[in-house]
């Protein structure tokens, strides 16, 4: 009788193990295929980093990248549906001043999913400026609220 119970348990474990192994290997394959599909779709030829911030910035007009670490005051430009630079690196305590050089109004507003918040410029007419002092390190992602699809930017603040 004890042998029958043992044999039954062994059979159950093996059946359950077989089901589990088969299902989990299939899931891993589909996840791998999905990931490869997404990465290939976003950059046809090669797999690139897919951080949420880079994905967000990828659709915007590119106004260049600047490293201004060590500078206390930094100027940025807004014009023709682009922030220049689009990607800016500064040190903690730096004040960045955006100037609207365009003849239509733009603003600088923190993206809802930005790791660091605080940017909240009003609509700026041509020649008007907005300044923000970045006291805390981190990534500040922002956009222009009337033109959210083309105008996006990032300020990366490093300790310094």
């Amino acid at each position: 009788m004890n042998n029958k119970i043992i044999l039954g348990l062994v059979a159950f474990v093996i059946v359950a193990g077989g089901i589990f192994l088969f299902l989990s290997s299939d899931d891993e394959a589909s996840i791998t295929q999905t990931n490869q599909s997404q990465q290939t779709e976003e950059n046809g030829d090669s797999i690139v980093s897919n951080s949420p911030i880079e994905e967000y910035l990828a659709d915007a007009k590119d106004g260049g990248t600047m490293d201004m670490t060590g500078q206390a005051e930094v100027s940025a430009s807004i014009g023709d549906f682009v922030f220049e630079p689009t990607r800016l690196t500064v040190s903690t305590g730096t004040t960045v001043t955006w100037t609207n050089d365009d003849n239509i109004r733009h603003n600088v507003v923190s993206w809802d999913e930005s790791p660091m918040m605080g940017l909240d410029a009003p609509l700026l007419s041509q020649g008007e400026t907005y300044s923000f002092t970045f006291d805390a390190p981190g990534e500040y992602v922002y956009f222009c609220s009337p033109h959210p699809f083309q105008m996006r930017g990032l300020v990366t603040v490093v300790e310094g």
Partner: protein
Amino acid sequence: MDTVKGTALGLGVVGLVLGGVIGYAVAESSDDEVTTTTNNNSDNSADGVTQETSDLRNDLNAEMREHVTLASSSLTTAFDEGLEADKTAAALAELDKNSVAIADLVGSVFPDSRDDFLSLWRNHIGFFADYTVAAKAGDQEAMDKAQLDLAGYGEDASQFFGNNLDDLTPEQVKPLLVEHRDLVIDAVNAYGAGNYDEFYAAEAAAYNQIGTVADALSGAIGNQFLLTN
């Protein structure tokens, strides 16, 4: 004991085969569901997808025509009462519900862009309000500025739709939005001048024209996302 070992071994083989068969059957049935979902971004069957395209067209038309009606009501109220009046706030609040509905429709196709679209849409209504207030004050400089802002809205909106829809380019979307802007401006100007015949004619024209915009967008969306291959 040998009998027990032999029996255990036999049961083990049977169990592995049985487990594999069961696991295969379960995996195959779940794969079918995933395949159906990823093929057409829709929960509908192949027959139901055509209905979904039709529904989107109807919904987008209804919401965008409602936008014109509510915007007209809001702008004329803003002209008469000022932007700070309770009556204007009430009209704009109702208009904003429509804005959310349109953003939700756009978000049903482009979920990651829903919030950005709402931001863009709300701002464009603000620019029309700015124009209306400027027109009431006779401030040509402010009117010109608001028109430039509206042009900027058209630029961003046309880039979004044109870059994300296979059947539409930004150059095709932009004139539709420019026409919409011009008709609404005409309506505000006519109202401000007291030319009510012209005002209602412009409002009717704007109501009809927005259907063209909705048809263009829903058609492109339907072709790209809602039809089976």
